[in-house]
């Protein structure tokens, strides 16, 4: 293992250029260093003009997602030594507009997350005097996996459908909707149904499955989407055969 490794970093300075430019930096290659350490070394010692997002450096904040050697990765969770002698290419996360260097615009993602109404919705709120909404461990297990999302957007970067049609609501948003639909305390599945069931909702998904492959937290958004397709299809069939039954009301399927 060499003691130095080359990072080829995409630079984009809109005031100077109209297309990204690759710039090479040589950084130390310690065995415990990750790509983010390499970027921080560049910023601290080689080139202070490099722009990128990072925060917790431990895989929980979701800020440091970038494209490393063509794959969407959390740079805080990707070891330099995984790439042998290098060079390692670091580019901004694909499928998002690039604001500058490695920083992408996330407004579309944020709008979609809030659009699925990611909060507990109830027909009637219990008064505080009646205490908390109780939930058994089994009930929590129903949705726990989908609550692990750190909003890192690697799944949107891996999803070819989102790349082709930015109107597609996307894996994380649907998994988040499922996190609430499957929560026994929530009664808002009907309210979320309309947004999810339109054409750019779940039906745009063709189960490529790459979102689940790149997810650093094991959320399995592809599974969440397929489950919801089955639920939505069954609901549609039921409402067709039994139109007198208005809405679902209780906790989602």
């Amino acid at each position: 293992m060499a003691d130095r490794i080359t990072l080829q970093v995409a630079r984009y300075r809109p005031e100077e250029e109209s297309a990204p430019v690759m710039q090479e930096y040589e950084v130390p290659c310690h065995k415990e260093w990750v790509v983010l350490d390499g970027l921080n070394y560049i910023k601290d010692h080689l080139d202070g003009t490099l722009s990128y997002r990072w925060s917790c450096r431990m895989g929980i904040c979701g800020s440091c997602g970038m494209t490393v050697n063509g794959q969407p990765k959390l740079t805080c969770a990707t070891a330099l030594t995984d790439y042998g002698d290098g060079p390692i290419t670091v580019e901004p996360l694909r499928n998002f507009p690039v604001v500058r260097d490695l920083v992408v615009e996330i407004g579309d993602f944020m709008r979609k997350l809030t659009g699925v109404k990611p909060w507990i919705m109830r027909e009637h709120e219990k008064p505080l005097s009646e205490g908390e909404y109780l939930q058994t461990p089994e009930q929590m297990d129903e949705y726990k996996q989908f609550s692990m999302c750190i909003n890192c957007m690697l799944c949107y970067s891996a999803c070819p459908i989102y790349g082709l049609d930015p109107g597609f609501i996307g894996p994380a948003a649907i998994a988040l909707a499922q996190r609430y639909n499957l929560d026994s305390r929530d009664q808002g599945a009907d309210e979320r149904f309309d947004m999810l069931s339109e054409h750019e909702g779940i039906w745009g998904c063709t189960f490529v499955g790459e979102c689940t492959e790149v997810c650093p937290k094991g959320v399995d958004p592809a599974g969440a989407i397929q489950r919801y397709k089955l639920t939505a299809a069954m609901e549609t069939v039921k409402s067709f055969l039994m139109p007198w039954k208005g809405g679902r009301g209780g906790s989602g399927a």
Partner: protein
Amino acid sequence: MSDRPASSPRYATHHPRWLRTRVSTWWWLQRRAYFKFILRELSSVCAAWFVIYLLLLVRAVSRGEAAWRGFLDWAAAPLVVVVNVVSLFFLIFHAITWFNLAPRAMVVKLGGKKVPGVLIAASNYAAWAVATALVAWLLVGR
């Protein structure tokens, strides 16, 4: 339902300096996973082809033994054989990917415990074996 604000309008939707890259027509060649995905989707064309083949076969049988023999001769032509060989591979590929992925769409519970996906896939393969055996028995075994 509790009244909540609509999604925030304050994120900009467009800025002339943002760099937006157009997705290439050949996006599906750029990653192995995407290529396998497109092949999987194209297997549906082989399914449609074989439905046409089946309908032609049934029509031939309904027209008498001579028509049926004629159909078998046509089906033995090199071009038709090649298409059917390719279709066989694609349809087996479809079956395997379908049975492997189907467990992700459903959560089955037996006695309160979640059935592992591997078992659901295994039962899919078992059903495939039974269906195959049944058809083979009907066409060859009797």
